[in-house]
């Protein structure tokens, strides 16, 4: 993992001291709320329905156990004993007091964490593949590049007041677990015909009010040009992106309205003009990459008799392995997904005790590392096959062994109207009802791989546009109402879901999802045809008919 150097630590410590002064001046009346609000937002502090909300950055979703223990400590000491992991691989605290936030940020700084770049019209916390560095078939670990982008973008003077927020995601795999095509800039590490690695650049993707799939702007950007090319993309946007209309201010609108060809020509011209300005020497790349060198893996056989025996003997463990354990690039190891989608718990929520428990497990059994996923789960990236059974037992004891990764109950869900000031409708309550309705694991297996994603407003924090089944909460004449979308995907085969038609009241939306599932099961070509494949084959019409004709 990357460790702060003295410059990183000084920058974060100075920011804490600045914010302490700003909070003090606000409380003394030397700053008005209008003056203070942009300052608090620059440190991730929002004001929500019930209280302030502090969003803490988890750069590219990688955490040490020490950091996770600190997140637990903050939940316990300053909040109400839990936190919420978000679709941006961050964590949010729902109840901090303004007067405590300087102390919270000071505590976070002791473990190299902060709330910088989690709000405002800047380059936000960079996100990545939660399986980075351990996935089989990966071209290269994308995290050194994320870290280079983090260092370049943090407090970047030219890009601190962009027309709108700007999100960058990087993956090193062909299978996209980072939703790069739904980002302002999506980057995929690729290898060219000469065997050199570089970057495929995608630009102008995003969800929100106007969902757009990113367009590929460059097949191959050499490593040394990463920051120059990104600078050119951002500089054109910063100059031409709209500032008169917040709904049209994202780069996706600029690229869409201007057309990729014209935007690309401007980027190329700027790149040609400024190339070499942001140098990325090989020595610096190597220095950053050294932080992400693979841990000391043991030479192990590819199979474990103990693991196989436990799988045979224990049904619960077998179910866990079926969905939550994934192939690792190193023989004898596995990647373990820790589901934060237990019944009755808001998707993405974890208690302080659970955070401590998973940190302990990571320390002992996962070579000191944890990941946060944009699907609001955690990952233990380096577990020996021999240790899997013990890890599962310890996760079970902590209430963290839900065996449902990739199944219908593994729902992405924003905080919605239960917490969020922007929301129009609740989402957690609908997720809860869906989980109850589809609780039976055998039924979940029969349905197969299915991603439900739900947002409580058009801002789409719950990624509803790219859910295989997407649900959007809206306000209809002062009442909660839910629109249904089908056929979205945030993966390498990205697509935007189609709205089925008129929405549903809260008491009917779960039934509507059940109708969709029933229709899929009756139409699919064999058990192996997933919902998404089936939908893409048959289209919206049969689902629409099933949903509305019986009305």
């Amino acid at each position, binding site marked *: 993992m990357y460790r702060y150097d003295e410059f990183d630590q000084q920058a974060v410590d100075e920011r804490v001291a600045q914010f302490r002064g700003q909070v003090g001046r606000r409380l003394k*009346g030397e700053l008005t709320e209008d003056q203070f609000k942009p300052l608090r937002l620059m440190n991730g502090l929002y004001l929500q*329905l*019930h209280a*302030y909300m502090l969003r803490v950055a988890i750069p590219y979703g990688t955490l040490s156990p020490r950091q996770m223990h600190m997140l637990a400590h903050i939940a316990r000491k300053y909040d109400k004993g839990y936190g919420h992991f978000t679709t941006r691989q961050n964590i949010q605290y729902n*109840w901090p007091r303004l*007067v405590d936030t300087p102390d919270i940020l000071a505590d976070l700084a002791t473990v190299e964490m902060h709330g910088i770049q989690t709000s405002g019209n800047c380059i936000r916390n960079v996100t990545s593949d939660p399986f980075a560095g351990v996935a089989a078939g990966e071209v290269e670990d994308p995290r050194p590049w994320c870290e280079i982008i983090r260092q370049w973008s943090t407090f970047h003077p030219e890009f601190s007041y962009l027309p709108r927020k700007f999100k960058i995601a990087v993956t090193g795999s062909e299978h996209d677990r980072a939703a790069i095509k739904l980002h302002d800039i999506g980057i995929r590490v690729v290898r060219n015909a000469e065997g050199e690695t570089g970057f495929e650049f995608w630009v102008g993707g995003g969800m929100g009010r106007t969902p757009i799939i990113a367009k590929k702007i460059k097949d191959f950007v050499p490593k040394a040009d990463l920051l120059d090319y990104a600078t050119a993309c951002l500089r054109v946007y910063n100059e031409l992106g709209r500032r008169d209309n917040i709904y049209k201010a994202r780069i996706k609108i600029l690229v869409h309205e201007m057309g990729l060809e014209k935007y690309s020509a401007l980027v190329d011209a700027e790149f040609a003009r400024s190339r070499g300005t942001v140098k990325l020497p090989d020595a610096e790349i190597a220095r950053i990459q050294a932080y992400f060198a693979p841990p000391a893996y043991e030479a192990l056989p590819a199979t474990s008799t103990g693991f196989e025996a436990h799988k045979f003997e224990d049904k619960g463990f077998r179910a866990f392995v079926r969905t939550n354990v994934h192939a690792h690039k190193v023989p004898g190891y596995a990647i373990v997904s820790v589901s934060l989608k237990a019944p009755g718990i808001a998707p993405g929520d974890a208690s302080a005790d659970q955070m401590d428990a998973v940190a302990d497990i990571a320390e002992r059994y996962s070579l000191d590392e944890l990941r946060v996923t944009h699907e609001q789960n955690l990952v233990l990236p380096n577990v020996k096959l021999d240790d899997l059974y013990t890890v599962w037992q310890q996760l079970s004891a902590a209430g963290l062994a839900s065996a449902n990764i990739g199944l219908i109950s593994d729902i992405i869900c924003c905080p919605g109207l*239960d*917490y969020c000031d922007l929301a129009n409708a*609740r989402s957690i309550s609908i997720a809860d009802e869906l989980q109850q309705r589809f609780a039976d694991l055998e039924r979940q297996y029969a349905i197969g791989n299915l991603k439900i994603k739900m947002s409580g407003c058009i801002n789409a924090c719950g990624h509803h546009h790219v859910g295989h089944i997407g649900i959007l909460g809206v306000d209809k004449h*002062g009442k909660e109402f839910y629109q249904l979308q089908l056929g979205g995907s945030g993966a390498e085969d990205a697509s935007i879901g189609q709205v089925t038609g008129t929405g549903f009241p809260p008491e009917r939306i779960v039934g509507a999802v059940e109708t969709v599932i029933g229709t899929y099961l009756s139409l699919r070509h064999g058990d192996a045809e997933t919902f998404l494949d089936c939908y893409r084959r048959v289209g919206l019409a049969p689902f629409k008919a099933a949903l509305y004709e019986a009305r």
Partner: protein
Amino acid sequence: MSFYMELVDMKVLTANRLDDGAVVYIGKAAPWVEDLASALVAVDAGAEGQLTETAAAAVKARRVVGAYLMPVTVEDGRILPASVRERIRAAGPSNRPDLGKQALAPALPR
């Protein structure tokens, strides 16, 4: 709903307390109260104006932020916010009855 209530536009002034962000209301007996049941209900433009003036002074005095009038109804002497959003603000998150004001008192119907 009574005949009286159909005619009268009732409002309560709400805000978030500056130092901890807690949801508060201008009260009948005290300037700011946490419990909606103790809030002062304005039934005419004059009363609304007074609430707005009180809130503006409290914003200036750094006691609260984000003050606004919210529509309510009164049923059987109980103040009920008109919107789901305000009912959730008054009670707490609907998925966590152990948190928010509802943890201390029975939740409002939502």
